[in-house]
């Protein structure tokens, strides 16, 4: 069986029997050649051959609009969703009052910044030790000293509600999916869609169903953050060893006890990784959610960028990264920390030492805040700012790099990007369709072939074929550049632990630093054009490539390496002949993520100015055209889903063949 898989994925077996794959491949090639020949003779293919024919282009947008009006107005679904939203709002009002003193019940806030900083310090200290304590406490001191306290608390007031809700919902859905296979089958495509569907496409529906304001911000954040939580808890539940369950059964657990006291605690590590992912997703949404009313850092950031205050928006970016890294490290520490056990008879005070220290420090902070106003609140006029220096540095940097950037821009546009774009647009629709069918066949026979044909076919039927091809062109070129940078970086970093940690820190930073900020310097360097767009996409897209390369190379089983060493392999040989081939499946997951990140960024890069689907999405937003927005969003999602399907399938088979995992 193994051998069969290996050879079929290498394509050795393909020749023997009749297969659809070859037919599709020939078809794709034949059409391209035909078009080329007719093009050299000055003619073109008939339109129905080179573009999706008219009878296939269906008015999906109108149907969706009609359906949307029906469920929101006639069915009254709107009042139901709004009821749920007002439940969320009740929580939000409490945190808003506590954290930044919004005039809502219980009307006791805002909590002084010193108290929160001390609490963060203690949390870090209790979880891991001094270093984490200083990182956590220091983050909040930075926020206060830079005069961003109120904005940060506005943001946090939403996150502290959205994150726990996302965690609970994710966990419950995960457990349901684990218990009922059918539910998992329904849920899994929805999760895939939720993760690939661009945010701008669900903005208008959210405004209709939920409204605007912090509650809408919280709900889009939840929608975005739940999928990884579901996945991780499902994975955790599935991985619980049989022995653990048996010992639970032997001690006479009821079904309910077996679930909550045996399975869930055993799946702790996976569940907590899910928690960590939820936190990261929440922070990633800070800026986007401000489009529909999330207050705080994101909104301020957009406002500062609009006034071209890059230095000050950079400060906000630093705050978001610090928050993300703090929360990430704390939740990871929590995941790794095993429960502490004390000997019988240990006094309460010793067992709860941390709690007591925390209460003591809080009391000190409250007293300080009561007597010294600056310990309660630092006003913006009292705050520090490094914006001026940042602006100067950026200015210097742009001036210094400008000549090289100008050259690069001209070179890329004239020699590569314009021809590539023309080529993508020139490709006949049926060729592209057949080509992806062929790729699907190679990866997973008939099933994958049909999946790919369906995705590409539906994009063709959407009436946005050319726009989709432009998006495909920018994304594919960006992914290529991401690999060009990310792979060598990952290989270099994987050589030792120290380098790996350094590069992973850069990865974390690049991933959480709000992408809107670097859109501006990129435009300054390259101007509004595809080079700037690709530049912005590459900054975030190369992160997973580097990360998974490191992970893949460092995860190669040591006995394999030792075997290589014993047969006298040099370092280079062991890298090229042992490590890399074994790491390929993991690297491919990185590639998959890179494609997802690039698609995601491509839509954000519409704020630089693109001609692909992102631009049309922007246009549909101003007309509040739900149907058009949904269709465009699905086009983006389908591209992502197709690539995801192929890569996941391929790397799963490859892993099985290699005997990894």
């Amino acid at each position, binding site marked *: 069986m193994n051998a069969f898989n290996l050879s079929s994925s290498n394509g050795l077996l393909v020749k023997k029997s009749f297969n659809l794959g070859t037919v599709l491949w020939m078809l794709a090639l034949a059409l391209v050649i035909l078009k080329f020949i007719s093009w050299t003779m000055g003619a073109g293919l008939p339109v129905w051959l080179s573009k999706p024919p008219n009878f296939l282009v269906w008015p999906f947008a109108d149907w969706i609009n009609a359906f949307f009006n029906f469920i929101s107005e006639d069915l009254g679904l709107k009042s139901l969703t709004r009821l749920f939203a007002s439940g969320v709002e009740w929580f939000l009002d409490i945190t808003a009052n506590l954290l930044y003193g919004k005039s809502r019940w219980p009307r006791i806030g805002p909590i002084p910044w010193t108290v929160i900083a001390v609490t963060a310090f203690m949390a870090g200290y209790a979880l891991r030790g001094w270093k984490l304590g200083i990182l956590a406490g220091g983050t909040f001191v930075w926020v206060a000293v830079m005069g961003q306290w109120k904005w940060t608390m506005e943001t946090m007031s939403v996150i502290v509600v959205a994150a726990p809700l996302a965690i609970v919902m994710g966990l419950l859905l995960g457990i349901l999916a684990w218990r009922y296979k059918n539910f998992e089958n329904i849920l899994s495509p929805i999760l895939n869609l939720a993760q690939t569907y661009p945010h701008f496409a669900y903005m208008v529906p959210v405004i209709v169903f939920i409204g*605007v304001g912090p509650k809408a911000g919280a709900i889009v954040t939840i929608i975005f953050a739940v999928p990884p939580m579901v996945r991780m808890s499902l994975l955790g539940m599935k991985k619980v060893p049989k022995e653990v369950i048996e010992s639970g059964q032997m001690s006479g657990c009821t079904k309910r006890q077996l679930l909550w006291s045996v399975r869930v605690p055993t799946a702790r590590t996976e569940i907590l990784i899910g928690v960590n992912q939820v936190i990261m997703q929440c922070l990633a949404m800070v800026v986007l959610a401000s489009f529909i009313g999330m*207050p705080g850092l994101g909104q301020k950031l957009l406002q500062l960028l609009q006034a*071209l205050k890059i230095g000050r928006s950079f400060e906000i970016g630093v705050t978001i990264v610090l928050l993300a890294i703090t929360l990430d490290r704390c939740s990871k520490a929590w995941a790794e920390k095993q429960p502490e056990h004390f000997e019988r008879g240990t006094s309460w005070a010793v067992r709860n030492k941390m709690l007591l220290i925390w209460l003591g420090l809080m009391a000190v902070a409250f007293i300080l805040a009561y007597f010294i106003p600056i310990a309660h609140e630092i006003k913006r006029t009292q705050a520090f700012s490094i914006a001026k220096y940042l602006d100067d540095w950026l200015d210097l940097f742009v001036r210094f790099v*400008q000549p090289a950037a100008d050259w690069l821009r001209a070179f890329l546009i004239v020699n590569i990007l314009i021809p590539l774009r023309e080529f993508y647009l020139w490709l006949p629709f049926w060729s592209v369709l057949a080509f992806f069918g062929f790729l699907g066949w190679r990866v997973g026979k008939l099933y994958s072939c049909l999946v790919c044909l369906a995705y590409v076919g539906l994009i063709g039927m959407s009436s946005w074929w050319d726009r989709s091809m432009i998006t495909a062109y920018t994304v594919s070129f960006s992914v290529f550049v991401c690999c060009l940078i990310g792979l060598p970086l990952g290989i270099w970093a994987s050589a030792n632990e120290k380098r790996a940690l350094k590069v992973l820190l850069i990865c974390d930073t690049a991933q959480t630093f709000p992408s809107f900020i670097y859109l501006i*310097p990129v*435009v300054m360097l390259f*101007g509004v054009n595809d080079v700037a767009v690709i530049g912005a996409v590459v900054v975030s897209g190369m992160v997973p490539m580097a990360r998974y390369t490191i992970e893949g190379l460092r995860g190669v089983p040591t006995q394999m390496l030792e075997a290589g060493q014993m047969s006298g392999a040099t370092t280079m040989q062991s890298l090229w002949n042992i490590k890399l081939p074994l790491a390929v499946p993991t690297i491919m997951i990185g590639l998959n993520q890179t494609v997802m990140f690039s698609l995601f960024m491509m839509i954000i890069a519409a*704020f630089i100015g693109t001609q692909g689907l992102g631009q049309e999405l922007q246009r549909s937003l*101003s007309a509040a055209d739900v149907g058009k927005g949904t269709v465009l969003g699905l086009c983006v999602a389908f591209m992502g889903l197709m690539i995801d399907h192929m890569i996941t399938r391929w790397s799963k088979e490859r892993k099985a063949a290699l005997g990894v995992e």
Partner: protein
Amino acid sequence: MKSNFKNAIAALTFGLALSVAPMIASAEDSSDPIIIPIHNWSSQIVMSHVVGQLFQKLGNSVEYVSTDSQAVYEAVRQGDATLELEVWEGAFGASFNAALEKGGIHDAGDHNAVTREDWWYPLWTKESCPGLPDWKALNECAAKFATPETGDKGRFLGGPVDWLKHDAERVDALDINFTVVNAGSAAALWAELASAEKTKRPVVIFNWTPNFVEALYPGEFVEFPKWVEGCNKDPSVGPNPDKTYDCGNPATGYLKKAAWDGMKDKWPKAHTLLTKISFTNPQIAEMAKLVDIDEMEPEDAASAWLKANESVWSGWLK
């Protein structure tokens, strides 16, 4: 515990009473907060706070919510946001009209301020193209504005596509040697401008007034054939007899206020105030300046502005 429960009931009854109140005594404003949407440019934010503080002087409570400037009309229509203070004819006219058609929102009067949105260049551009601001002169130096992606044609950097400008049509109708490239956001426009300034590279971009950019980068609008009514619909109007859009944008576009239809009944006093409010170009520029140049926080800028301009608004409150 028991008293908490009592309180809750009291609050509930009170709440019910409040929601019924507007029907009984429609002359009094509801105590629910008026929701004012704020966007990402400073004049709008300061103006929102100025108006918010005026509402507070009337005894209303006010809350601010950040929203996208295009999507906001849908929110006003639904009543989730109560009003919108800066409806620009050029940038948001389309969204506003689309929302008007669907219903739930109405026009609450114009500001005194007029807006102009058109092709614009920073002053240093004049050095390489001295014939400006005339559009024919601009066309003659088109090559000076060429970039790799536009070949030998000049490049005009337009605003985001969702502002629904007709630059490409104009280029075609007036047959000028330019290619329109659309920036995706105002921030991208300013980034190009800032980068051009470093080397004094000639650029022509989409810009508007009143705008904070005027204070940072002095410049002028390109003078296209004057806007005549119908130039966008009737080919025979304007210099080119066969094409539409053979003219500049109107130099006096409106700046409107819009309100949710329910506002009139729920907060009648505030609604009356809203219809009276009208700011002029210099006043709006002043509001923007307090934040963009003087680095004040929008709330403080609004208070400072109200303090300094009492004569402007005291009449509206009567």
